[in-house]
């Protein structure tokens, strides 16, 4: 699976491993009177697994939506690969190399597993309407080339047996896996995973953790993960940022965060 995928897409570009790839400074987001995120700052370094944790409603998913351009924060600055980002559409974030999965599986239900993952290659496919209409020559060879890349992902995620099955009928755990495959097909530099293990049993969680670690190691992909299973978070992530009521309450290695009093209070409650 390693050598065959387009090497350019996994190249670091202008960011060296360990350097800051994306930084969020003082970002605030509110919907009317509801403040979802209040002045949060943190950074994501190239090649790390960065976890975002926090109780329900802490603003974790909103944070991901801000990062990939779905929400536009009222205040604050986001810098991606050294460039400051203004308000942008999500497809531009995608073209810059940010992919994500969703908390509630957001697959294209009417399409097969293969087509879903092929959709992830959209940005890499250049042929226009007319050559598609004939499905001959360049359009066909492009399709075959990308099919090959997608088959590597299918092999890697061990979903070859459901290749042609419509995703709407797959069990939940497999749907999550297909969704990861779809994001991987984009060969992203930054992969945002929103609760990839929600609702999974132990075995499925182990599989998913294995996939995430392999993705990080082989593609050198930077990963941001939101997860509620603390065991998984502590084992997988290099650094953890903790949100509560839209504010950052802790940031550091898993061990540091675990012993942080504010985090313990946020999770267990505190006597007032």
């Amino acid at each position, binding site marked *: 699976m390693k050598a065959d995928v387009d090497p350019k897409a996994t190249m670091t570009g202008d960011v060296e491993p360990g350097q800051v790839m994306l930084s969020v400074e003082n970002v605030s987001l509110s919907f009317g009177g509801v403040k979802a995120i209040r002045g949060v700052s943190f950074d994501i370094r190239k090649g790390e697994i960065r976890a975002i944790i926090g109780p329900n409603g802490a603003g974790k998913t909103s944070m991901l939506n801000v990062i*990939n351009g*779905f929400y536009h924060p009222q205040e604050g600055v986001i810098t991606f690969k050294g460039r400051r980002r203004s308000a942008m*559409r*999500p*497809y531009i*974030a*995608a*073209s810059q190399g940010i*992919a*994500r999965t*969703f908390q509630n599986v*957001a*697959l*294209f*239900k*009417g*399409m097969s597993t293969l*087509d879903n993952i*092929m*959709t*992830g*290659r*959209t*940005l890499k*496919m250049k*042929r226009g*309407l007319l050559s*598609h*209409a*004939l*499905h001959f020559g360049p*359009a*066909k060879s*492009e*399709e*075959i080339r990308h*099919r*090959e890349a997608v*088959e590597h992902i299918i092999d890697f995620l061990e979903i070859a047996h459901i290749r042609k099955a419509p995703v709407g009928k797959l069990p939940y755990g497999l749907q999550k896996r297909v969704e990861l495959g*779809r994001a991987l097909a*984009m060969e992203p530099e930054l992969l945002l995973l929103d609760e990839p293990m929600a609702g999974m049993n132990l075995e499925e969680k182990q599989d998913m953790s294995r996939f995430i670690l392999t993705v990080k190691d082989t593609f050198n992909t930077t990963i941001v993960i939101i997860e509620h299973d603390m065991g998984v978070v502590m084992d997988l992530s290099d650094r953890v940022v903790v949100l509560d009521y839209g504010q950052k309450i802790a940031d550091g290695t898993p061990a540091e965060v675990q012993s942080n009093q504010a985090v313990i209070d946020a999770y267990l409650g505190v006597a007032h």
Partner: protein
Amino acid sequence: MLYREAGQFKSSYSADMAMFPIRQDRIALALLLVVAFFIVPFVASDYFLRAILVPFLILSLGAIGLNILVGYCGQISLGAGAFMAIGAYSTYKFTTGVHLPLDWFGTEISIPPLAVLPSILLGGFMAAIVGILFGIPSLRIKGLYLAVATLAAQFFFDWVFIRVKWFSNYTPSGSVAAPELNFFGLVVHSSIERYLLCLAFVTVFAFIAKNLVRGSLGRQWMAIRDMDIAAELMGIRPFYAKLTAFAVSSFMIGISGALWAFVYLGAWEPLAFDINRSFQLLFMVIIGGLGSILGSFLGAAFILILPIFLDQVPHALGIPISVETISHLVFIIQGSLICYLLIVEPHGFARLWAIAKEKLRLWPYPY
């Protein structure tokens, strides 16, 4: 089914991605084309060709076009009749010569009369352009609200083609007669020739539609249909995906409108493309199967053949049944069938056919 893919192993992605991966399907399609092109014209009666097969083929093409928009891209449209009309009137103008004085700009557009084939294609392009214009609201509004916007297109163009006499070359009655169908010296006149002409158009565009929906563009359309937010986060531009769907769909509907006017009707007035035509195409797509090229054909066949079937069968069985009752029966059956399919099987006959095939693979065992 009588056959299955067992034993047919694919050793290349090219073979696996073929339009019909199963060998028997390919043979069946080839046979069907041979029969349609070489046997039907000589076997079928004049009435059957002219009154059933020609409208069936033309409306199938329209249904394929509408299916791309509604079934594949998920954008509801009630304006199909308007786009057929645009195709028909544009073709008419191109065949009779366009003369448009633009006094304000001190210039004029003047195009000499063109041959029929380029005119039909240009008619399709005009429909595509208007389709893109009326598709722009789809970037903001969805579902029923979009349906209302396309309904506006329907009423607007009904009005335009009645009131703006320029489109009908100032004929006093407002009705328009198609010029001679001359294809590079070959004059299409008899029913057989008309049938073959329509068949050729439908075959070409059905293959093009099938190619489009299995390629990258088709996946973009379906992604927008199934989950537009996720599609955008995958890098799909909704602007591009939706407007290409509107363009391709309107192009095919425009071509079918031109054929309907030139080949089937011969002479027509704006009423030929009123809202009932839009509904007819939409019902074909819903009954036949949203998101299926085969379904477009099944839907067109059903909607056209049901009235004829109800007309003939009771007579043949000796059941006395009045003409009015039959026309009411058609409405009752179509209406209830649409309700039934929308509730039970939104993907229509095409899905029922697929389910039947799945069941037959295992028959007589349950699994």
